[in-house]
């Protein structure tokens, strides 16, 4: 188990370091998020007061669409020089590849959120008055569930030549519960604070989803890694 985490962290570190060198994925995700925010400003009148109602949805639309850009890259980049085969022949558990990739994708998405969400609030003149810690918890749990299934299905779809098209199609239906839960709990925190007692059932749904799918993806991953 310790070896598993060690090699997973080595993979995470390698991915993040390569990303730090190039900043390719990160900058693409940021620019894409910016463009989505601009498009939202055309779609919903930013001076209108009702804009508050769509902010929770925006947060998750940005996270998920930007996230998919990164997920698509995370296993395609391993195909260059067949480096994924290098990971398979090395003495590590296949699940540690999953765990390592999950961590690096998750960290990148959290960084993107750290920039885009404040930006969204500023550009749409939204004043945050809910519980910030709970808000961060919701962001954390929601993104974790999304990336957990996303990393797994990215590895699956990387086997196809048209993986960029395949991934969104197979990913969205599976993550629909986490999207519902994440948007609902964000809405409760940002707008309908009076419904706060139902927030906890949403949070527990997210936590349950994260745990369940992490375990399943973790153990099923070796079937994806066969050549």
């Amino acid at each position, binding site marked *: 188990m310790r070896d598993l985490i060690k090699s997973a962290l080595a993979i995470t570190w390698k991915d993040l370091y390569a990303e730090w060198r190039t900043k390719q994925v990160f900058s693409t995700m940021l620019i894409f998020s910016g463009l989505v925010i601009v498009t939202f400003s055309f779609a919903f009148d930013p001076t209108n007061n009702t804009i508050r109602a769509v902010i929770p949805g925006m947060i998750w639309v940005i996270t998920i669409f930007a996230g998919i850009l990164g997920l698509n890259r995370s296993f395609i980049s391993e195909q260059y020089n067949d480096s994924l085969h290098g990971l398979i022949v090395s003495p590590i558990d296949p699940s540690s590849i999953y765990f390592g990739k999950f961590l690096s994708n998750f960290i990148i998405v959290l960084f993107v959120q750290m920039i885009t969400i404040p930006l969204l609030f500023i550009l749409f003149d939204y004043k945050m008055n809910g519980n910030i810690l709970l808000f961060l918890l919701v962001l954390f749990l929601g993104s974790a569930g999304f990336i957990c299934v996303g990393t797994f299905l990215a590895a699956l779809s990387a086997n196809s030549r048209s993986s960029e098209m395949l991934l969104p*199609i197979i990913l969205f239906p599976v993550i629909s519960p986490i999207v519902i839960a994440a948007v609902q709990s964000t809405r409760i925190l940002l707008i309908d604070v009076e419904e706060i007692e139902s927030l906890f*059932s949403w949070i527990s749904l997210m936590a349950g989803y994260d745990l369940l799918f992490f375990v399943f993806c973790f153990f099923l991953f070796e079937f994806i890694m066969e050549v």
Partner: protein
Amino acid sequence: MHRSLIWILIILMSVALYLVFIWSPIEKVMGNVQKIFYFHVGSAWVAFLAFGVVFVYSILFLMKRKRSYDMIAGISAEIGVLFTAIVLTTGPIWGRSAWNTWWTWEPRLTTTFILFFLYLAYIFIRRMDGAWEKKARLAAVFGIISFIDVPIVFMAIRWWNSKLHPIVFGDAPNQSGGGIEGEMLVTLLFCLGVITLLYIVLLQKGIYIERTKLAVENVKKNIQEKLMK
């Protein structure tokens, strides 16, 4: 065996139609339209059943790696798409007449909607390029993941639904068996049985076709190799 099943199916299907249209009483509030519900519910049941079959045979495939398990899962998913499509079209028709709106984001309908996309995703994976072993393995993994997902989807949608829209229409007849009359129940159960039989017949047919296709392909490959020598 297959042939006799088809005949039994045809006879039972006519009986089912008789029960639905003539024998069973007309519902007082909704009238004739309520009769959609027999086949609607039957199709929904088979859709979920088909997905369950995909799940079971996906697990079996990953353990035993037999091609026939993969075939059964694939055909079952296809039939599942067919019956989810039936649920998704008859649902709105009923909704239109009962609630005067084509679509409501009612939990069962929404779950079926997502189920439809899960099936489609599964079929997309099966249509990937590459050797069958790879496609079968990946599809099986997805079949397992998506089956676990369905109950969570249902739960999430029901919670979301009860928070967003308080139930305006009252319980629809398929949501609670409460006011159902004896004859209606008999008809419903009969229809469930007949549609399940229809599923089995379609599954047999599909598997038979896949098997012959495979056999023909093998023969063709052999002949090709012989001719090229």
